[in-house]
């Protein structure tokens, strides 16, 4: 599939800019649950990027792929797979129609993130429409590029509030030859200790999780290297591990069911406790990324969770929710001022996904 609707999108943004009407940017609608619901977005006009499709450049030996933002994530992953390559940040799709643009806009990464990097780390360049309807290109298709400010990476995680992604260029990597997942029955404290010990050695770690008293670590690389690493760490080899990591990434494990709001807490991996109720309840907490990402199912107030995270120099965001207002970790005033200035610099009429990240943006 190949279709270029950039002019049509540009026209729609230019019109919205002139009329000062809010736009709600939509790709595959796979992550519409994520982010704030703002009064302004209810009346916003939909800007549908999903028709802006197609891989524009992919040469496996250059380790770079460039695609239009509406290209389905699945198509890109299939194409890479055919060539023995992958998106190293293992992005979640949540539904079959997730797009590469939405993936980058949300900057969500999967189990490999702690060992390979996040979506933003693999973003080399992008073409955007800013809030004035101008089409601009930043970065490029090469690994090393320090010309101008890193506006591309600024787009990753901005959730469309600074610009509409039209094209993205991403670094890709070869798929590992083999993978093996090892299981260990242990307490949370022991799990963190083990994972910290291993992380300080050159083991080929590529994922880790802890839930329900079980630590799982994934080792990836050349056959001989993984075999040697398995011998070093021990534990039981998990059957159907591929399916497990897939379900973890896509949030299809039983853990992700239930009524309670789901919190995504990012903090230093060696912090044992945030002193929150239910934090150590084995049903309600799951660790990833060697302890640096903690999923918590909890209905205690947002302020309590976010204050506890801030006290530890971390942050908490409400990932799946029932319409609470504070979704993302509040920013200190100095940082918020810079955020507002940047929003003004890219979207002076505040028409792009207003309020999606913070009420002030």
């Amino acid at each position, binding site marked *: 599939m190949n279709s270029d609707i950039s002019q049509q999108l540009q026209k729609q943004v230019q019109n919205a800019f002139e009329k000062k009407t809010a736009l709600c940017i939509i790709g595959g609608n796979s992550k519409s649950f994520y982010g704030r619901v703002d009064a302004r977005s209810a009346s916003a006009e939909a800007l549908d990027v999903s028709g802006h499709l197609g891989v524009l450049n992919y040469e496996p030996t250059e380790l770079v792929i460039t695609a239009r933002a509406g290209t389905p994530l699945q198509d890109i992953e299939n194409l890479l797979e055919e060539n023995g390559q992958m998106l190293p940040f293992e992005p979640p799709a949540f539904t079959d129609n997730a797009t590469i643009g939405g993936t980058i806009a949300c900057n969500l990464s999967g189990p490999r993130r702690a060992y390979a990097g996040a979506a933003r780390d693999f973003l080399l360049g992008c073409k955007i429409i800013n809030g004035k309807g101008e089409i601009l290109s930043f970065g490029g298709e090469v690994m090393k590029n320090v010309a101008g400010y*890193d506006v591309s990476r600024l787009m990753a995680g901005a959730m469309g509030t600074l610009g509409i992604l039209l094209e993205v260029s991403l670094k890709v990597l070869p798929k590992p030859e083999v993978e093996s997942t090892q299981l260990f029955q242990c307490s949370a404290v022991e799990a963190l200790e083990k994972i910290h010990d291993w992380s300080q*050695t050159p083991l*080929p770690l590529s994922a880790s999780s802890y839930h329900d008293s079980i630590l799982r670590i994934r080792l990836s690389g050349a056959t001989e290297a993984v075999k040697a690493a398995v011998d070093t760490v021990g534990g039981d080899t998990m059957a159907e591990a591929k399916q497990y990591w897939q379900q973890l990434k896509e949030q299809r494990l039983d853990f992700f069911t239930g009524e309670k709001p789901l919190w995504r807490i990012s903090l230093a991996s060696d912090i044992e406790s945030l002193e929150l109720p239910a934090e150590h309840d084995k049903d309600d907490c799951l660790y990833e990324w060697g302890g640096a990402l903690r999923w918590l199912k909890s209905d205690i107030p947002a302020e309590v969770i976010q204050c506890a995270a801030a006290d530890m120099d971390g942050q908490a965001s409400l990932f799946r929710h029932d319409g609470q207002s504070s979704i993302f970790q509040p920013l200190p005033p100095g940082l918020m001022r810079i955020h507002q200035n940047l929003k003004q610099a890219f979207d002076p009429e505040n028409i792009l996904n207003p309020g999606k990240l913070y009420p002030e943006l």
Partner: protein
Amino acid sequence: MYSPEKTESTLSNSALIDALQQIIPAGSLLFAEEDLRPYECDGLSAYRAIPLAVVLAETIEQVQQVLSLCHEHRVPVVARGAGTGLSGGALPHEQGVLLSLAKFKNIIGINPKRRIARVQPGVRNLAISETADKYGLYYAPDPSSQIACTIGGNVAENSGGVHCLKYGLTVHNIQQLKIITIDGELLNIGGSGLDSAGYDLLALMTGSEGMLGVIVEVTVKLLPKPERAQVLLAAFDDVVKAGEAVGNIIAAGIIPGGLEMMDRLAIKAAEDFVHAGYPLDAEAILLCELDGTNEEVSVHVLKVREVLKQSGATEVRTARDEAERQVFWQGRKAAFPAVGRLSPDYYCMDGTIPRKQLPQVLKAMADLSAEYELPVANVFHAGDGNLHPLILYDANIPGELERTEEFGGRILELCVEVGGTITGEHGVGMEKINQMCVQFNSLELQQFHAVKAAFDPKGLLNPGKAVPTLHRCAEFGAMHVHKGELPFPELERF
């Protein structure tokens, strides 16, 4: 030729010195010309300027006070680390303050569990790895100046090195920053976890060349030291074959820790200088370093040997031991000074291209070399497409520096033309300010200026560097008419 943007300070020079004396102790404030002279340039010594004063700040409070003062009175501020930068980013402003962070040289702490080091900006790049060594950890980005360059400067320039393809640039290897804005406010950027809330200001600050804020603390990520590293040296009778070999290694699913290419002139210069045993009859050599676990390296060395042979290498050597590995690298690491021995001066360029364009770019560069009658040696971070052509010239011959700069500019424009960039790791600074007009159009440059204004609305931090004004581009464009069309046709001409 570069000239700084004019500023309108509301303070006389003597009043500025008086005000700075209220903040900074006597030994840390320089304003006599003989004391200012050592700060007149950075690693790009062809350009020099004397600032009004040099402040050797020691505390965050001092930096805050100096910036507040300069902000209030519209005095330009240029931040400086070790001054090893190659693009003139730390070139002083004649009407401004040069703010040196060199005294911020404490390693605040290393946390081996979190695999991070918290350091002040004046800490040398190599000192981080040396200190982390006792935990079996190291800091991956290794710019060639790592023995001297500071981490604050590395962040400001988004420095790379020879291991970027596998381990990334500075932006991939830092976790948290403390910066002071031009109005003196301390901001914490990033967090102690892997995610941080809001916009990715960590990425925006990295490589911002001192235009957005002054870095006063950096938290870097550390990696476990690889169990083993082994290097292969392959000779080719044709640079095109060497370029293809790089693609073939990657196609085999291997990402080497380092992958470097040198051309005939660079090989000869290096060999004459350090006697690394490089084959002098080769048109190009590749150095391929594989690192990781013992087993992985063993498998990959065999695989890469095979790939290199199949790609037409005339010779493939594997370093037998650590000593020989060091010898193989020595020639590459000494390539710049080695080339420096061939000629009174050399000018180091820094463009990046999609690797497949290498043959075309090398050919065009050879043509330009003939046109300008200036020899060029090529050293190439082949894995990531980052070229370092070294133009040999003699600054004492009138007009030769100008000719060299023009030649260099043409090389950078060539990089943009084939889909690459004017700077891979050295930054724009003042050196490549004109070529920014080639890489970006006026709307994109305006967007950059808007980003700058979001942090520094008065334009006092490192004014005139990194992002050209549209008028500068119009003037530059007047000299460079492409395809019969003037760039920036919408601008008035003066």
